[in-house]
Structure formats: structure tokens, C-alpha cells
């Protein structure tokens, strides 16, 4: 909790905590942070017992949809989403991996049909050595967590 103090507390809203520093920008992209019009505080390279360095995002007055939660799970399965009301954590959403994901992630295989024709992507989600692997429904190739690219 101490490290959270380094970033301003919010009265109500969402705190995405325990983000691996390397995942921060992808998570910002996936939740389309630039479209939000409320106060946002971002901390990066904060000390963390678990990872060495972590990142945190605080978004005032907004609460995540299930879809957002699932998206964050794919990028960083260890992230924790806290719902804040009255400066207190009222709910902790430990992100959970969905079995399948569609539409918003790009298949890494340049020869895949989804990169040649207007086809919505679709993947089954697998975890290997703590990392997310997405197996394409079409070309059957695997896109690893570090190569996940968001379609905007």
C-alpha cells in the first residue's frame, strides 16, 4: 500500500495495481486511456516486492466493464483491479483469463487470413510458464504474451 501513496489517492474510481512495468503502455492502449475525460494518475517503475518494479493506473469516476477486465487479464494476468469508493477499496477484481478472445488482438502471423481479409480475429487462450499464449482459430499459430498487439 505504501507505494500507492506515491500517486495521489482518488475518491472514487478504479485503481489498476500490480501491473508489470513492461505491460503498462499496452494496458493504457487497450483501455483506450486517451479517450477518458476524468482525472488519471499513472505511476511507473514503483518499487514492488513481487516484481522489482511495478506500475499503477488510477482513473477517477470510471468503473471497468467485464470486457475491459478480460482485456487487461490477457496483457498482464497478475494485475489487480481495485474499485474505489470514498477513498476505500470496496472490491478487488483479480483479473481472470477468458477461454477465448475475439476482435481486438492481432494475429502475429503475417500469412494469416485475418491479416489478409476483413476477418475478426479469434483466439483460444492458453497459459504456459505463467505467460499467456493465444492460439489463432484460423491459422492455428500462437501469439505469445510479449507479442500481443492491439487492433484499434
Amino acid at each position, binding site marked *: 500500500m505504501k507505494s500507492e501513496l506515491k500517486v495521489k489517492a482518488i475518491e472514487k474510481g478504479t485503481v489498476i495495481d500490480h501491473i508489470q512495468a513492461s505491460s503498462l503502455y499496452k494496458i493504457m492502449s487497450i483501455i483506450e486511456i486517451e479517450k477518458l475525460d476524468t482525472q488519471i494518475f499513472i505511476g511507473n517503475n514503483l518499487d514492488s516486492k513481487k516484481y522489482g518494479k511495478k506500475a499503477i493506473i488510477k482513473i477517477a469516476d470510471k468503473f471497468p466493464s467485464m470486457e475491459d477486465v478480460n482485456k487487461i487479464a490477457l496483457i498482464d494476468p497478475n494485475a489487480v483491479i481495485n474499485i474505489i469508493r470514498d477513498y476505500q477499496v470496496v472490491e478487488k477484481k483479480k483479473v481472470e483469463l477468458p477461454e477465448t478472445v475475439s476482435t481486438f488482438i492481432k494475429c502475429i502471423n503475417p*500469412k*494469416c*487470413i*485475418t491479416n489478409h*481479409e*476483413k*476477418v475478426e480475429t479469434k483466439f483460444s487462450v492458453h497459459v504456459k510458464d505463467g505467460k499467456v499464449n493465444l492460439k489463432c482459430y*484460423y491459422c*492455428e499459430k500462437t501469439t505469445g504474451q510479449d507479442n500481443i498487439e492491439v487492433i484499434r
Partner: protein
Amino acid sequence: MKNKSLVSINDYSKEDYFKILDLAEEFQKNPKQKLLENHVIASLFFEPSTRTRLSFETAIQRLGGKVIGFSESGSTSVSKGESLKDTILTVSRYADLIVMRHPVEGSARYASVVSDKPIINAGDGSNQHPTQCLLDLYSIRKTQGSLENLNLFLVGDLKYGRTVHSLLIAMSEFNPVFNFVSPPSLRMPQEYKDFLDKKGIKYYEHNEINDNIKHADIIYVTRVQRERFSDPMDYEKVKNAYVIKNKMLEGTKDNLKILHPLPRVNEIDTDVDTNPKAYYFDQAENGVYARMALMCIILGVK
């Protein structure tokens, strides 16, 4: 299985495959059955593959079916920029079944999603070619009497060879022992070795063809392609190390058969062709029976 597309070898169960293999055997005994007289089958080859196309079209003709389609996309609406989706949606209004080959990976799966007629994948880039696997299984069962407990040698390009990967997965159901023979740069990918480890199936890796082939039931040879080597010298060094010659077959098991998906370049010396252990042309013929069986089952006429 009626109306069920075959895009990837994992689409069908072990029982489904046995059903196809049994029917293929029946067609081999009696190929003159005009079961598809009232059917139109589309054969869409967006990239040329003469061998596969002729095999499918022979299978259709033998069953009395009619074929529509093209052997390369150059002279069709595809070259005018038509999407795969539109081509498939149109052809699915004409034909009862679509056989397709396409260089883009996942194209056959996508076609099976948009089409209300079943799709047979005749190869989608480096991804899948399930009817090749089907005819390989047929050839192995036919020559060995069973698929169980065999010692299989896979020789050549094991890294990029999609046929050997599919064969490995399919045969892993039948308690085999695998021997992988390849240049170090073209070894079986780790994910397939992990798969075998998980299933508790034994495999051995070799850099060259050696005396171990005396224990082989099947030697499955694939082509080592020049394009796979960034340094042409590396290719020159290995190109002759993986050539099967008749002399090497002395002392091998009586039931041994040499398989190859064809076309062959030089990886099986022509002096092997007259050896009764050479089976690759029979294997090609078997492809016709396997495809006849598959199409009849999908169309529900058998």
C-alpha cells in the same frame, strides 16, 4: 460426419478416421461405384498443386461426380480483387462440396465459417493438409496391418515439413516409437517433442541415416529444400546425407515400407523404385481411395 468440414486433422475423431479408412479400403477393392452422380464438387486451387488437384479430381470422376473450379487463380475473378469470402459464398451456391487449396493460412477455416456447404482443406499455406495425413494413415495401416506399436523413421526436413507434423500427431494415438533423422538446423520443433513427452511417447534424434533403420517399420522421407538454408554451403553439405539408396535397405525388416508425400527430387534414389519396400507410388494411388471415402462420407452417400 455428414456435412462436416475437414480443415484440420483435429476436426475428426479417431473413430471418424477409422470409418474413412475402412471405406477407402472398400473403394480400393471396388473403385467403380458411381455414388456421386448427382453431385457437383468445386475444386478451387488458388495456388497450383497439380498432384493434389489431380488426385481429388480423379476421386470425383471415379465416383461419377461433376467437377467445377480452377487450377490457379490467375484467370478468375480472384485476380480482379474478389475477396475469398465472396468467392466462397458464390461457389457454395453452385456446388455441394468445396475442395480448396489456398496459400493464406487459416483460409480454409474461414471458408468453412462463411460457407453453408462443407469444405475440404487441400492445403492452406504451411498450416494444414489433412487429406495427406489421411492417405498416409491409410498406407501405413494397409502395409503394416495395424497402426499400433510401429517404429517410424521420419527423414529430411522435420522443421518445416507440415506432413511430418500432422503424421506425428495422428500416429501419437497408436503407441509408436519415433526416430527423427535430419540436419541439426531442420530438427523437429520443440513443441512437437514436448507434445510427445507429455504423451509418454519415445523418440530419438539422429543427424544421419544409420544402422538403426534395421528396426524401422516405416521410413517416411521428405524433401530437404535448398530455400530452407540461408547459406547455400550448408545445403551443399547436407543434401546428400539424407538420400535413401537401395544398398542401405539390406538387412532391413521384411515389412518395411518407404513412404514419401511426393514430388521427389533426389532424396530417394531411383534404384530404390523397384525394391518391393518402395511404396510411394502406391501411397499416391491410395490418396484417391482415401479422398473418395472422405467425400462420400461428408456428402452422406455412404
